């Protein structure tokens, strides 16, 4: 087959005309979108996460205050004793959050 034959077939396609109510239908959807109130923030679902995050921050702040006390001297071992559990806590929290989000996503996808 010649290249111009493909061009003729694919470029020579006749156009379809949108139905008469198309513009009205699009504008009705757009108007509904424009006049709809903004979605409220889902506090009911978000508060456990917010509370958990706040607790984590407070706990870390507590550990930090302990570390400042420990850092008064130059005892490196004492400093490690504080920093290692802190790092472990961060990693554990991140892992827990990842697992929780993965499970939540899987549950949501199964429902959809």
């Amino acid at each position: 087959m010649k290249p111009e034959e493909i061009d003729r077939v694919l470029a020579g396609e006749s156009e379809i005309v949108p139905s008469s109510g198309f513009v009205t239908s699009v504008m009705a959807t757009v108007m509904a979108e424009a006049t709809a109130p903004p979605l409220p923030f889902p506090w009911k679902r978000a508060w456990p996460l917010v509370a958990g995050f706040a607790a984590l921050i407070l706990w870390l702040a507590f550990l930090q205050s302990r570390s400042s006390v420990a850092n008064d001297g130059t005892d490196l071992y004492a400093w490690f004793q504080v920093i290692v559990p802190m790092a472990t806590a961060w990693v554990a929290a991140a892992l827990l959050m990842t697992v929780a989000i993965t499970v939540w996503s899987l549950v949501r996808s199964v429902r959809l």
Partner: protein
Amino acid sequence: MSAEEDTADVARVLAGEVSAFEAIVRRWQSPLVNLAYRYCRDRARAEDMAQEAFLRAYRSLASWRKEAAFSTWLFALATNLYRSEIRRLPPLTSPFEEGVAALDRRATAPIIDEERRDRVIRNAVLALPAKYRDALTLFYFHGMDIARSAASLGVPEGTVKARLSRGRDILRSKLPSLLRNP
């Protein structure tokens, strides 16, 4: 279609005059519905897809930076949407190899109606791998304009040329008897 009209209407919509969006819809309804139709070959679904494209355009109108023409931005947005829609719910076509085999068998008949043959070739484009299908669809939709096709697809012009060439090769190799000149 005037770029100035588009710019003025977009400014009015962004200023809060939502009804100004109607002029944009009237101006671009035919191109957007026709582009959707080339992706799905179903008139009702094409209108649904075009409606969704207009709604998304309305939502993200503020993101049009005016560096490119409004039409370029609108076609890129619509093309992205149509490609995702087709990926989510493919049009009712047979798998490429299966459809082509059936078509070639029919094509061995001495006389094949030209209109039907053309329809079969257009449907065969839909059964191509997505990147070749997109290149061919946009290229012929934009009146064989490589630059506009590349802008709609968001890829370099060279990539479009390569995909067009490969897409045509696949069509030619898979539909030899059907595409033979009578």
